[in-house]
């Protein structure tokens, strides 16, 4: 690791800490900083302020960090795997699968899906939506993995994923077309994306899942570096290419699926964060990129969360819109400034 890289990483750590604290201090209502600190330290104080900080802002910020890191890592893995700068965690149709699951229970209850699910599991509301998204994403993921284990060319796999996505989106569109307005409103709200729905209880599942996903990525940096140079080169280095490829695909897809299930579709962080980190560090070495992407992803998601509160009063901007609006110009700037191109070694 060069001195510049070490400094950049240290800077990112400081950035994450600062934005994390800021996200706890800011919310849709004004709570004096002193109260926020008292609530965090567990000092008994005014009930409502403490409640808001510990049960709303804190889990929301932790969720944002985990989600941002996960999406960034998954994006990095997919871009490396397919050697395609436009690949993102959802390139294999994962978010379409999750959408289909949610669409079936939110829009398709006329078809008995929600009622059947309800009576079978007793799960309703947000938990039902999360469960449906996990099932939908897992089904598409399983299908893609089975097919791709028989296909050698990664580009073919990528195109297959895209086609899966189109087919699934078509089914969702049919469901949307046949829905009552009030159900459509609920469906639209899912598409906004949000870190606020992940409570401490759900974090007990969300936290470990994302943590292990990121751990897989951290443990496979050497394989990723080899894959970057092409599969034949990787093979000549003694890498079990097919296994490395499947493991990476599995890790990235699970991360994408878990985040989508708990937070709804959050676009662009997955594409933007790896590009920003490559531009910032001028390297494609995954041993540096992985920690950088984790930090930058966390910071990016937290900033998006803070920006989504901008309307003031009690209103909130759709998170998904904020990440896209923030992400697009950043990627353009990085691409234009980087002389060697973001994908050069």
């Amino acid at each position: 690791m060069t001195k510049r890289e070490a400094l950049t990483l240290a800077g990112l750590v400081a950035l994450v800490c600062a934005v994390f604290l800021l996200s706890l201090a800011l919310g849709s209502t004004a709570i004096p900083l002193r109260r926020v600190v008292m609530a965090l330290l567990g000092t008994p104080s005014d009930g409502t302020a403490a409640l808001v900080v510990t049960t709303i802002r804190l889990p929301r910020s932790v969720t944002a960090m985990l989600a941002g890191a996960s999406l960034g890592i998954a994006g990095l893995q997919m871009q490396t795997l397919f050697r395609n700068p436009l690949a993102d965690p959802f390139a294999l149709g994962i978010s379409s699968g999750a959408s289909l699951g949610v669409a079936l229970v939110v829009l398709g209850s006329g078809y008995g899906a929600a009622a059947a699910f309800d009576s079978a599991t007793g799960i309703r509301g947000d938990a039902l939506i999360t469960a449906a998204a996990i099932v939908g994403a897992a089904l598409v993921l399983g299908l893609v993995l089975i097919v791709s284990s028989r296909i050698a060319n990664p580009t073919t796999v990528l195109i297959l994923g895209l086609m899966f996505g189109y087919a699934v989106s078509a089914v969702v569109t049919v469901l949307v077309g046949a829905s009552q307005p009030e159900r459509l409103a609920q469906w639209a709200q899912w598409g906004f994306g949000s870190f606020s729905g992940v409570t401490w209880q759900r974090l007990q599942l969300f936290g470990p899942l994302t943590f292990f996903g990121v751990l897989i990525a951290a443990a496979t940096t050497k394989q990723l570096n080899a894959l970057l140079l092409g599969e034949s080169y990787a093979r000549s280095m003694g890498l079990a290419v097919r296994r490395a490829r499947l493991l990476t695909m599995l890790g990235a897809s699970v991360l994408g699926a878990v985040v989508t299930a708990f937070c709804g579709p959050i676009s662009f962080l997955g594409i933007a964060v790896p590009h920003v980190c490559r531009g910032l560090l001028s390297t494609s070495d995954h041993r540096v990129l992985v920690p950088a992407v984790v930090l930058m992803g966390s910071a990016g998601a937290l900033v998006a969360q803070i920006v989504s509160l901008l309307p003031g009063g009690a209103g909130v901007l759709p998170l998904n819109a904020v990440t896209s609006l923030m992400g697009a110009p950043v990627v353009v700037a990085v691409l234009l400034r980087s002389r060697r191109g973001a994908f050069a070694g």
Partner: protein
Amino acid sequence: MARAFVRVLLLCVVATTAQTAGGRAANVTTGCVDRFDPAVDYFPDKLAIEDAVDVSVEYRQSYKVVTVSDATEGGPPERYVLAQCGTPAPQLTGDLAGAQVVTVPVTSFFAFSTTHLPLLADLDRMDVLTGVAQHDAVMDPKARARIKAGQVIEFARVGLVIDVERVVAAKPSLLMATGTSNATLSVIRQAGVPVVANSEWREPTALGRAEWLKYMALFLNEERRAQAVYGVMKRRYRSLSVRATARPVAEWPLVMTGRSTRGLFSIAGGRSYVAALIRDAGGRYVWADNASVGFASVDLEAQIQRAADADIWINGGGWKNLAAMTVDEPRYAAFKAYRQGQVWVYERRETATGANDYWSRSVTRPDLVLADLVKIFHPTLAPEHAFEWYMPVPAR
């Protein structure tokens, strides 16, 4: 002032001529007039709009001019000319040129929304219903009987998308929609089927919404019945509201509304008819200063800051019991109304398939909604009232 006086004078003269000419004392509610007499007022029964803000009517001898101010979102008001069947088509000039003409009384009626059906039911005129968007969504027993007898066709079965060919082929004398900005509707109009908007759902008060009963009556020449039905209902509403709001303010409970999805609370807006109902029932709404007319979304954090101490929580829904509520959203426990079991939903008459009688009948019966709310807010004021739609969410 002078104009109003002239109009009153004119009305008197016309009324006298009508009496002397044909001895006609009531509007023609079925069929047409056989012989046209330009001196006759064909609408001796008239109605006046008292509470609705988006609809108004002017009577001319053989036709009525109805204005719906909110027919299209942000668009100009729409004007409809309702001409008595059997009288010559009125010469329309000025701002009435090109207005939608409807021959009244209508004999075959297509209702796009299920909320249009209670209007027919309250006027006891379900006999004109010949089309609904979707059969399955209909709950009214009389309408169901007509569907069973094959007298009512379905014209937007898939996805509430209007099947233009079915409508035009059936040629109803009127299609009522929830708004007229839809392109499909202008195609239907050009094919000769009159289309009018019903924007009852934009009214800021519950009484205003209910008064759209009179709007329906205009197309059926049922002015007399509408005036009576609405008058009785309004008196009940007012007298109960007067008693409820006469309670000392210290006894007015603090009321919150809505439910949370992923940390976003959808609530009734501060200028919605729900907010007006809370006020009329002697309650203080936590978001009374909110500027939204319909629904509004507020951050869960803001809702907790505002409503943590609310005494009563209404209009959530979809919960099996109190325990299931916190499984879905643990932070519901932050609300006092939740901890004290004061969570009320309008699901007393919900069928297994999720159809809810509240949505089809509450529009024209705000007096009953108000009575339910008064019984929740001030139980001693309405001891003999039996809950119509509201029930507390059971503990388990």
